[in-house]
């Protein structure tokens, strides 16, 4: 048995900015306060538990404890065929289940191709995948936007966000019958065609959504109190973000121009005209909470642009699945594949030994690494700022714990 090391308890008075050496500090007995923030806490976005040590209002350390939602996804992967495992990817980032499905399917397809198999996704299915995937990105970012408002005490944006998300969920329901756990993508394409009504709904959504974005920005993004609360708070600079493996909006908010969809285009992302949204430090320091928030708001606009173009260019209806053997066996090989999910880069490392099930299927979840950076950022923040920072990382515990 390997000996486990436990971290040394923080020293009293180690709160940043509170080091003082005067009569009060010497005569007054003071201790740090240890609090469990979570797993049942309104703003930990699920079952995250932060063990925080505070000195008054100032947090001197925050240690995340995760695993409350661990469902052995990687072990399960080793006992299920490639097709069967798609439904488990739904349960990872349940707010962007479509994107998780998609990434996994792309990973398996890449693995099949690497082994010399022919996997030709029909053109039509690629467009459907992009449209649905980007819709889910908007839905996920809407939740991020709404809950961020909640974290900072503004209730109303959340309901406005849910209102638009409802439209997207209705579209998904028409497409695949489910509202949260879709399992719509499959290895080789998508499971069903989009019905005509859903396509009409998508067009209607596109026509309406840009106006709504302005509404959100007026309501929350430009609010003085909101800027006061989010700007210059929880700054994650580019170096830290890269070192801690942050991806997605957290990395881009730090000013790192990196979006897998743009720099390593998969599917058909190279056919659309859209921009990579970066943090600009407009309201404060580059890489603060406001930047992370704003990157998501701008990404929604870009996703909207992609959807509009994809709907425009949508080819004539046809097959939605590639011709693949029913009893799918991946050739021997291994592959790490990552794709840009709403939360960051979701990666799958799949090793196949030629069987019907993967030999090993490791998930690299973006929120897992985005959460890790909190250990570095938290010391010195106030409790309110800690909440703001956790919110700005847009964590989904289903994905962290898998």
């Amino acid at each position, binding site marked *: 048995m*390997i000996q*486990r*090391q*436990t*971290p040394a308890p923080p020293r009293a008075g180690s709160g940043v900015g509170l080091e003082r050496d005067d009569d009060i500090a010497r005569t007054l007995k003071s201790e740090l306060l240890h609090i469990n923030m979570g797993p049942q806490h309104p703003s930990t976005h699920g079952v995250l538990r932060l063990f925080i040590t505070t000195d008054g209002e100032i947090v001197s350390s925050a240690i995340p404890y*995760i*695993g409350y939602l*661990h469902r*052995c996804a*990687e*072990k399960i992967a*080793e*006992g*299920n*065929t490639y097709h069967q495992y798609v439904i488990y990817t739904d349960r990872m980032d349940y707010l962007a289940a479509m994107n998780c499905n998609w990434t996994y399917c792309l990973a398996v397809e*890449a*693995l099949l*191709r*690497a082994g010399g198999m022919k996997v030709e996704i029909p053109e039509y299915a690629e467009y459907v995948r992009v449209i649905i995937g980007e819709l889910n990105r908007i839905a996920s970012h809407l939740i991020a936007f709404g809950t961020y408002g909640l974290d900072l005490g503004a209730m109303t944006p959340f309901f406005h966000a849910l209102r638009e998300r409802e439209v997207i969920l209705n579209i998904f329901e028409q497409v695949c019958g489910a509202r949260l756990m879709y399992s719509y993508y499959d290895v080789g394409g998508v499971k069903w065609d989009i019905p005509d009504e859903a396509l009409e709904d998508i067009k209607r959504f596109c026509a309406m959504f840009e106006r709504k974005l302005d509404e959100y920005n007026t309501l929350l993004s430009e609010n003085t109190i909101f800027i006061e609360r989010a700007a210059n708070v929880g700054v994650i600079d580019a170096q830290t973000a*890269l*070192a*801690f*493996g942050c991806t997605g909006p957290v990395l881009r908010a730090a000013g*790192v121009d*990196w979006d897998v969809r743009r*720099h390593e285009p998969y599917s058909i992302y190279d056919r659309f005209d859209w921009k990579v949204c970066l943090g600009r430090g407009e309201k404060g320091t580059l890489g603060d909470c406001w930047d992370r928030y704003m990157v998501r708001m701008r990404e929604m606009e870009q996703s909207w642009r992609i959807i509009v173009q994809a709907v425009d260019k949508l080819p004539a209806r046809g097959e939605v699945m590639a011709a693949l053997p029913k009893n799918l*066996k991946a*050739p*021997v*090989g*291994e*592959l*790490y594949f*990552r794709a840009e999910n709403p939360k960051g*880069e979701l*990666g799958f*490392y799949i*090793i196949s*030994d*030629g*069987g*019907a*099930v993967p*030999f*090993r299927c*490791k998930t*690299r979840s973006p929120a*897992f*690494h985005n959460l*890790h950076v909190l250990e*570095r950022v938290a010391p010195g923040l106030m409790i309110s700022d800690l909440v703001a920072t956790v919110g700005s990382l847009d964590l989904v515990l289903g994905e962290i*714990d*898998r």
Partner: protein
Amino acid sequence: MTHEQIHQRLAQRFGAAILDSKDGIAQPWILVDPQSLDEIARFLRDEHDLAFERSLCISGVDYEGYDAAGKGKHREINQYEENGTVRPVDFTASADLGVVYHLESLAHRHKLALKVRVPRAKPQVASVGAVWPTALWGERETYDMFGIEFLGHPDLRRILLPEDWEGWPLRKDYQMPSRYRDIPLEGLGYSEGFKR
């Protein structure tokens, strides 16, 4: 930089610590000595022409039963006896554990899969947490699931499972315990499902 160039750079600098390399596949890899992994990692990050500033993914692997020829034991999902019980698989043959590090350089836009293999009896790898802080959690997860010890890791605890959980679940020879504290785990389908 191509994979071959990276391999040569490493081979020049570390010589015998670079054990193997495979090119010409979808994602080439380099197998290195687990004890000098931290130095290699530092070299990979700090050299200007390599500059692997990102560690994307750290995956533990249990190579038990892996057969690169494609005739592994894991070809079927579950092998059932006629009476419905799961057929036990022979795990007596020793096989290595391994860790795979997927690295990337944004500056040079090249990627690398760095592999180490450690004996099952004494799974010890040098920690790269000092090089890429993100590895601290990746290594904790690998420790949690495979029992691979990362030497020099400042805080090597279980991360996803409870602190007092026994065993290393993602090893191929893992047997689900019959109880966890006061909670019976038999008969719930978990123990049976994970057996091969």
